[in-house]
Each structure stands twice: as C-alpha cells, then as structure tokens.
C-alpha cells in the first residue's frame, strides 16, 4: 500500500473524537459549537477521502487523462458543508440570544439560574 494508505481515515477518526469530546466535555456554549464544527469537518474529510481514486486526477475533462477521482462524494459534501455553515450560524445566533437573556454562556451558570427559577 502506497504512502498515505489509511492515514486520512485515522485523521478522520481522531478529529471526530476530538470534536465529540469538546461537545460533551465543555460547558461553554461557544466552545460546544466549535467542537461540533470539528466533528462535522471530520465527516467532510471522510467523504473527500472516499472520493479519491488511486492515480486519478481531478474530475475535469482534459486530453490524455483517463482515470478520474469520483466527484460525487465531493458534491455531496459541498451540500453538507453548507448545512454545517447554516447550523453554525443558527447555533451562534442562539448563543447570542442566550447571552442577552441570561448574561452568561457557561452551561453550569445557566443551570444554576434555572434551578432558582
């Protein structure tokens, strides 16, 4: 097996776990969104890697090139990236409004306020 081998997939898994860990372990609402982004980006990388065909060039018609990488996963993940952007924007908008009504974006402080209420 040539050099990269399954390297990309290892990175996918590592990124995925890092992102997932941040989402679960961090109490700061913005950091959770960042973690969610890392998590989603690992999936983007996964799809892009999947589309690679050994020895294939970029999927643009040109003279003398016969093997192309599969462009479909790239197209799919473009959609997922746009969805990710929308999710991030919406999540941050919610954080802004949470900050306006609670005065904090720390999960435990918000939790403490809700217990009083």
């Amino acid at each position, binding site marked *: 097996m040539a050099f990269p081998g399954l390297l990309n997939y290892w990175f996918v898994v590592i990124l995925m776990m890092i992102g*997932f860990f941040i*989402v679960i372990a961090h109490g700061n*609402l913005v950091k*959770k969104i960042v973690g*969610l982004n890392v*998590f*989603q980006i690992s*999936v983007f990388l*996964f*799809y892009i890697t*999947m589309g690679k065909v050994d020895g294939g060039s970029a999927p643009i018609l040109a003279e003398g090139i016969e093997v192309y990488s599969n462009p479909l*996963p790239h197209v*799919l993940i473009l*959609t*997922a990236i746009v*969805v990710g952007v*929308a*999710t991030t924007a*919406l*999540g941050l908008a*919610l*954080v802004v*409004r*949470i900050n306006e*009504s*609670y005065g904090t974006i720390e999960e435990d402080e*918000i939790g403490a306020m*809700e217990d009083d*209420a």
Partner: protein
Amino acid sequence: MIFQHLPILQILIPLLAAPLALLLRTPLLSWALALVASWASLAVSVALLLRVLAEGVVVYELGDWAAPWGIEYRIDALNGFVLIIISLIGAIVVPYAKRSVEAEVQDRRIYLFYTMLLLCMSGLLGITITGDAFNLFVFLEVSSLSTYVLISLGRDRRALIAAYRYLIVGTIGATFYIIGVGLLYMSTGSLNIGDLARLVPALADNRTVQAGMAFLTLGLSIKAAVFPLHLWLPNAYTYAPSAVTVFLAATATKVAVYALIRVVFTIFGGVDLFEAFGVHTTLMMMAIVAMFVGSIVAVYQGNIKRMLAYSSIAQIGYIILGLSFDSVTGVTAGIVHLFNHALTKGGLFMAMGCIALVAGSVRLDDMAGLGKRMPVTMAAFVAGGLSLIGVPLTVGFVSKWYLIKAALEQGSMLIAMLIVLSSLIAVAYVWRVVEVAYFRDPPDGDTAVREAPVSMLVPMLILVGASVYFGIDASTTLDIAGAAAAALMGVGG
C-alpha cells in the same frame, strides 16, 4: 398532466410558499399563504395515497435522471400514509396557529414563524417521499434547522436553551446519519434506497456495511427520541410555542421513526438483522424501558406540557416495540400507532395550547376548576387522555390491541402483560389532570365559562374526533398499515 407531477408538488408547494411568506412580511398574509399551501399539500398527499393504493408504487425521477444515478421520489403504501399524517397535521395546525401564535410570538416575528413552519413541513415531507439516502439527509437538515428556530420562538427564555440543546444533539444525530450513508456508499457505490436494499445483502458480512448500519440506526434514533436518546425532547416540547409543540409532537419524531423503518426494514431488509446482531432484543428492551420510564416520569411532572412530552417518549416506545417484533402484525401495530399517536398527541397538545392562551399557564396547580371554566377544552383533553391510556372506542385501543396480538403471536405473555401494565400508569397521569380540573374548585371561585377562540377549538375537536372515529372504525387505517407492513416484510422475508 398535473397528476404525473404530484410527488414533486408535494414538496414544492410548501417549499415555494416559504420564501413567498418571507417576502410578504405581514402576519395575516403569510398565515393565509401557509393555510393555502398546507391544504393544497394535504390534497396532493390524499391524491397520491389513493393512486398508490390503486396502482401500486409511484415513482418520480427528478430531472428525468433515471435511478440509481438520479434522485427518485418513491411512494408506496408506507410513506404515502406518513405523508398523509404530516400534511393532515400541518393543514389542521395552521388554522389553529393563528390565534395561538399571535399570543405567544412577537408580532414582528410572526411571518418568520410561518416561513419556518412551511420549511419544516417541506423538510418532513421530503424525508418521507424521497428514495435517495443522501437527499433524505438534506431534507432532515431542512426540517431540523427550521425546527430549532421554531422552538426558539417560545416566550420563555428557557426555549432558547432547549433549542440550543436540541441543535447540538440533533446535529450529532444527523452527522451520524451521513457517516452511515458514507460508509454504505463506500462499499456499495449507491445512494438509492431501493438500490442499496438490493446490494447490501451480498455485503452483509462486510464490517464497513455493519458500521454504516450502526451509525444510521443511532443517528435516526436520536432524531426519533428513542429511549435513552430522548433527553432533548421534554424541554423542547415544553418551551416551544404551543402550535409548534402540536406540529412537532405529531410529526417530527414520527418521520424519524419512518426513516428508521426504511433503514431497518428496507435497506437492511434482506439481511437478517434481527437474528444476526440481536437488534431485536436490544430494541425490544429499550422500547419496554421507554414505556415504563416515560410513563412513570410523566406522573411526577408539574407542567402538563412536559408531562405529555414524557408520555410521547413512552408512546415512541410502543411504536418501536411493535417494530421489534419483526412480524407483520407487530409492524402493522407500529405503523398504525404512528398515525394514531399523531392524532391523539396533536389533540392533547392543542388542548394545552388553548389552556395556555386562556388560563395563561399549563402548570397542574393552575388548572384547578378548569373543567367548569373551559368545558370543551377539558372534554377534549379527557377524550385524548383516554386514547393515550388505550380505552376501547379510541385509537389508542386499536394500537394496543394489535401490539398485544403481536406479542401473543410471539408467544410472549410477559410482554403482553407489560403493555397492559404500562397503560395503567397512563391512567395515573391522565387522572391527576382530571382530578385537579374537575374536582377542585377554581382558586377564586370564578366559574364563568371562558373558552378559547373557535379557530382553535375546531382544529382541536377535529383531531380528537378523528382519534375517536378511527378508534371505532379502524378498518381504513389498519388496511393501509397492514398493506405497508406486508410490503416491508415481503422484502425482508
């Protein structure tokens, strides 16, 4: 000519109405547009189901690209039925929403409310109608993103937190789903659900396919709030505006369960999953725990919207239990309960919306004497509550009857007993509300009748009436659900 385009119109009507509602910007006009769009899509889904029942599977190829290369919309008895659930609830919620939303959402945001409701509707319809696994993800996100916005429109600031939590959990669920789709695509090279169903059995021993199956099931279970992945649901339902709660409780989780059925029974239908991986027992245990935990936690809730939310978790447990039997009767019970529970819970949450509007609170303590002050609403609540319990002559009874029948078919007396026992817990939580509302005097002795506006009462009575009607004459719904189940199991063997 128009009949040939019905499948795309189903999605297109709400999807086109959404940006138009954004442009109209006035509460009244955007409401009227939503009303027209939701009734039009109800008409389309009825026409589609009739055509499916008469002619069999209806297929529509987008851009005339043949499947499996293009995206196809594929309607059989199962998703035709689910389409009816979504568009029926949508068509009934929109007239109901008018007064409720005026009271609960800021004026300048009302047009956004209807935009988001239409988007959510088209997303849910899209999940149901599409025959393409990745397209399903796109519609899943369309419906999810608009759902987060809808929940955050609630009056209470806790709605923001609920929406945020749902956003995090929902995004993780959806991302799991695309990881699963990616793994299946890697090993089969196809995204078309029918095509996958054909290709997967040969690869059943492939680890990649098995991992894909795990990701798909987990992701969709989060969206469907299958126990123990339900933690986002109670707060989201409790703090969302009443009309949103009605719509979500009746449709959103149902559609996720539908997608789960597609994955388990269609894509992996050819693989003997239940035998091979013990999915059968796992699902059944989770379902039974959900039935009990959901019901018991519901008994201790002071907020009735939250109580009903926990009851929903229990009811999803019943649906999953039906599916886990892996028999035609069991799957029929699950599918028919999708419809029945949508009617019942929709009606109950509508009653809560009326109470929230008139009495200003849905806490149990504030409901004393409501039986006298809001007789119609409380009567509807009682009828809906009876259906949750599963009393004969309501839809709840039909579902439970089939569940018990399926359990006995498997020779499991124990599960049949557990179904009856968990229904008895439902008696406890419904009774608490009845007791306070009917047998306790109003705090200030005020017994003057003050009902919610007619525009809210009529939709509520339609849903509750339907839940009684389909309880007495269940043959229509059972026939369709039976046909859908037979088709699913026919593939699955």
